[in-house]
């Protein structure tokens, strides 16, 4: 644990307690409170009845009960939104990562005519404000019969993940030593076997980064399901949230529970994959 070593180092040479150290620690602590306090209020209020929240918005729950979660899950359709979000997000991430890994392998390992152009073509998608293409996309999906269809949304989502995934994975494939491929080829392995058996396992950390990094914005996306899905039984959590806030507007306890249900998977993912997320966010700066 890095925290433990930090502390032990501290005890060897105590830092001078100056105005600057007090000030900087103070700022960090105050901002941490600004971030955590609203989240804390949300979680504690899920366990308090609404009329108590109205009386005193910030207070600890007197009893622990999870009724608000049950109401949100059953009566406010969160069970359905949650499953939709999970299926759509996971399917999109799997599809997007798979096709990206295949393309990135060839683009990263071989220098064939047109390869550089293809890489640039994929990477160009990183900078495009894709939402502005919603009207043609809507008409395209409409002509394919994929409006109000979860598969349509999955195809679109998988496509949006490709530029970033190809960019990251290709740079990882490029760094793998050439000898590995040669050894496998001498053993008579086909290209696909070399890819699947030799190379893919070696870029597993990059695959994790790419997958986590697609998961977060897709799970959170509001715009595409709002436009592309009509029936409420296909809605994902962010769109379902708008209906929920209209229907349950006076039931604050349940509203807070809905916020927690939508966010919990991401918090768990973040705490278990902090490094992958930070690598993804700073890709291109750290070399």
């Amino acid at each position, binding site marked *: 644990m890095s925290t433990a070593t930090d502390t032990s180092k501290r005890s060897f040479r105590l830092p001078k307690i100056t105005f600057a150290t007090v000030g900087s620690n103070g700022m960090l602590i105050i901002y941490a409170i600004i971030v955590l306090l609203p*989240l804390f209020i949300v979680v504690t209020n899920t366990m308090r009845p609404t009329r108590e929240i109205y009386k005193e918005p910030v207070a600890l729950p007197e009893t622990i009960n999870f009724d608000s979660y049950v109401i949100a899950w059953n009566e406010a359709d969160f069970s359905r939104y949650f499953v939709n979000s999970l299926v759509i997000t996971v399917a999109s991430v799997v599809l997007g990562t798979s096709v990206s890994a295949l393309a990135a392998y060839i683009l990263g390992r071989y220098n064939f005519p047109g390869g550089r152009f293809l890489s640039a073509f994929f990477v160009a998608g990183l900078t495009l404000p894709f939402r502005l293409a919603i009207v043609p996309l809507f008409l395209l999906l409409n002509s394919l019969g994929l409006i109000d269809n979860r598969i349509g949304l999955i195809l679109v989502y998988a496509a949006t993940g490709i530029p970033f995934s190809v960019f990251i994975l290709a740079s990882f494939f490029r760094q793998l030593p050439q000898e590995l491929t040669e050894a496998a080829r001498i053993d008579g392995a086909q290209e696909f076997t070399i890819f699947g058996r030799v190379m893919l396992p070696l870029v597993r950390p990059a695959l994790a980064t790419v997958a986590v990094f697609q998961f977060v914005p897709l799970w959170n996306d509001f715009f595409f399901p709002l436009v592309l899905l009509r029936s409420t039984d296909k809605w994902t959590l962010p769109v379902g949230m708008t209906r929920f*806030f209209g229907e349950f507007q006076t039931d604050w306890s349940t509203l807070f529970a809905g916020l927690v249900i939508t966010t919990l998977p991401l918090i768990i993912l973040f705490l278990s994959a902090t490094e992958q997320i930070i690598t993804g966010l700073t890709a291109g700066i750290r070399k």
Partner: protein
Amino acid sequence: MTALPSANPNTKRRRTWRKNAMMPSVPTIALFVLPALILYTVFMVYPLVQALIFSTFEFNGLVRGDFVGLHNFQELFTRYPLNEQLPRAFGHNVAFFIGTMTIQTSLGLLFARLLHRPRFGKRFFRTVFTMPYLISPIVVGYLWRLMLNPLFGPVNNTLRDVGLGDLAKPWLGDPATALPTVILVNAWMWVGFPMLLFGAGLAGIEDDLREAARIDGASDWRIFRHIELPLLTPVIGIVTVLTFIGNFNAFGIVWSLAGADGPPAGATDVLGLVFYRTAFAGGPDAFGLASALAVLMFLFIFTVSVGVQTWFRRLEDKLQ
């Protein structure tokens, strides 16, 4: 939302060995590349190109009609209420960007600097400050809508409890405070992002430079101002461009915090909302108009992004 690609310094060396590598056959290459290429081209590139074409056509519902030249563009600036909503929303986006740059970016830089050295609780602070960025903008918006509720919201309630009752006000209901509130909530959500980018930038600066300056008797502030800040110029450029693109695409957070029409009285209306309403809550010719608006927004975002990047690159050259 992701950082821009940077040149790989090792490509040159590697290209030589790849020449000798056994090249797979064309069908094999196609098999590997085509799934991604088709998906990406059909669902991303093709619609973007089509938006350009659609902007010059008249639409009747879902049916494309005649070529009308720049008529859709003209309509954007003459037809009521678009002619009033568009410039107002544009102004809000500019304010949104300036507000975000001053608050979010300076806080991000400050925190990155404070967390640069190994210190107690570094991981904790970094994790906590990045966390809100992962929450859906929709959730962040609704969360703060409840927090800022004029009657039962914890914010006003706390202000009253500590004797600052005069400050308790309908933050999102008053046209004067609504947009600044949206900007602050957005900054609350995003501050970890510039912090991480600046952190990575600071980690890339060699410690020898700092040590040399310190031996010469430079203070922490002077090291920051004259060594670190100039070397961070490229990162500041990336942060500026990404913040700009993000702000001009703002949609979900305004929708959930204020509403689809940018209430009160359009005080929080932004281009993202205007674009959505034009496309999906407009008249029969909505799709042509929305495509024209998409083209204008794309051109604007693209031109400014390239301009800002060029300006920062020049600044970088001047500083070195």
